[in-house]
């Protein structure tokens, strides 16, 4: 896809998207289309996941390329406004004012989402508190919440206003396996007609809840399609890449190949080593039996 020729009002389309930070190329001519359903954005640290999501969320601008988000062009101020009115965004590092309490923070975000009618805003805050099971802590300061609760709060603020596009950057980062399972259940319960894209290091998250996956490596899109489809591409996607990167791609392929029999690598991916969000190291490629 060299340009966004046919605008789809229910998807996110990118063509030759490029973003640089100084001499670092964070996104390198990325082409992709994200349709309705849950799409997983998979890749190691530095792959460009956060950069891509921040561009889709209109928090950052690309240096080159074309982007269409739900049929709107974010280069235009009116287009950005339309996108933001349909957007629920969970950044990778969600900050809170130090003494914010849960309900007050959601109330603030609801106002930013143009829900200015008091009664409607309170009802919306109550709704997302119920969806994320945070009703019991509505009056607590955020700083007293556990990491899992804070991520649920992040998801709650993204759900305010029932957005058509959900952009979640590492929504399950820092969660233990049990919390991650509950988070997956929460995400799986979201309506399927909205466009949801979430970035993750965890292949099992992708397998569990995503209907499609985009694999990013070094700022380039290496694969887009259903998770099982990645398994059928053989090693061609890894050819010509540095050894360490080739191992990463092969490991991803292996994990997607056998979702029903978790390998040691997948089990290790749920352990403490992932707290820093890296693929398990050293990567052990399981030999076929």
């Amino acid at each position, binding site marked *: 896809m060299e340009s966004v020729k046919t605008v789809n009002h229910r998807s996110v389309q990118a063509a030759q998207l490029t973003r640089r930070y100084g001499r670092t190329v964070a996104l390198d001519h990325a082409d992709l289309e994200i349709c309705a359903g849950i799409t997983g954005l998979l890749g190691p640290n530095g792959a460009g996941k956060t950069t891509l999501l*921040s561009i889709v*969320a*209109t*928090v*950052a*601008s690309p240096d080159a390329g074309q982007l269409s988000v739900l049929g709107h062009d*974010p280069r235009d*101020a009116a287009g*950005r*406004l339309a996108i*933001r*009115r349909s*957007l629920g*965004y969970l*950044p990778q*590092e*969600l*900050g*809170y*004012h*130090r*003494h*914010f*309490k*849960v*309900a*007050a*923070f959601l*109330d*603030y*975000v609801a*106002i*930013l*989402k*143009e829900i*200015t009618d*008091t*009664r409607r*805003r*309170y*009802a919306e*805050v*109550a*709704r997302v*508190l*119920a969806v994320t099971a945070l*009703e019991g802590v*509505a*009056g607590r*300061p955020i700083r007293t919440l556990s990491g899992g609760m804070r991520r649920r709060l992040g998801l709650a*603020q993204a759900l305010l206003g029932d957005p058509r596009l959900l952009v979640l950057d590492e929504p399950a980062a820092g969660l233990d396996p049990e919390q991650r399972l509950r988070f997956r259940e929460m995400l799986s319960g979201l309506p399927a007609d909205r466009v949801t894209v979430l970035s993750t290091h965890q292949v099992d998250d992708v397998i569990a809840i995503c209907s499609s996956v985009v694999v990013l490596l070094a700022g380039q899109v290496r694969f887009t399609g259903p998770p099982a489809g990645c398994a059928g591409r053989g090693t061609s996607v890894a050819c010509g890449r540095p050894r360490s990167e080739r191992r990463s791609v092969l490991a991803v392929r292996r994990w997607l190949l056998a979702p029903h029999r978790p390998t040691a690598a997948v089990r290790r991916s749920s352990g403490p080593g992932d707290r820093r969000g890296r693929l398990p190291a050293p990567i052990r490629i399981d030999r076929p039996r």
Partner: protein
Amino acid sequence: MTDASRQICDEGRCQAVAPELVAAYSRGALAQAAAWSVEAHLPACRYCRAALAVEVDRARLERNRAVLLTRLALSQAGGPVTGTAAVLLTGLAGRLAAWCGVPPHIWRLLSVTPSLRRSWLAGVALVLGTAIGTARFVVVHAEAAGATARPAGLLLFLLLAPLLPLAGVAAAFYPRLDPAADLATAAPLSGIWLFCVRAVAVIAAVLVPVMLAALAVPGGGWLPLLVVLPALAVSTAAVALATVVRPLAAAIGVGVGWVGVVAGASLTAGSAVIAYGGMAQAASLGVLIAAGCLFAARRRALDFGWNR
């Protein structure tokens, strides 16, 4: 429950209240007096309670319950931020704002503005206090030496007076001072409207202490009024320039420009008070009008996220 009412309701159905009344009560369609009558009857009549349970919209009840709990949680929260200046603002300034008719949602947006926090306003007060102290020190020493030094003593205050509102406006939108900056940027209300509301509030919140401090400066004269136009011109120029270049660069550039103006006036005319004189007031008014026009023309280019 009285014996008479128990007799009425023990005959298999309610004799006191018609089913249609109970249905109307569940829909909220009764007049106040009739609704109170039904409510007073309900504890005594299990048939009416059973009929009400069938009629009630459980989903609406759940929503109302959730809204009440949220309202309770928000009232317990006090304000969006506790333990900082917002507590004081919510108590005194919040009541004043409510009395002036400021909508609650606008007050909540203002109360999380970085440059409306107690720490920031205390810093402004400290800086102004330092400027006043410096002016008085210079004046006292000059008088002790038998010389006139009033204009020289005012240099620090004259330099800082327009820069403090400028710094407040810049801080209101500097991402590193707002922990939830990304959320605010990606929200539809992050545009011109929010910018204007916060900028006006910050300028007013800082300009008033500046004007009051000008009263305390020795030999200030008409200075409390003379600081207004230059302060507005500097802040508006930075805001207008932010539609052309990056906002931080615009604020720094305009600030450096103002320092240059004051320094130049001090060197050429021997007194920085010239920067607040008649011609300077007219120039400030011109800058204010030009900057306002530029901002109005290019306001859609102002986006703190997309242009980052």
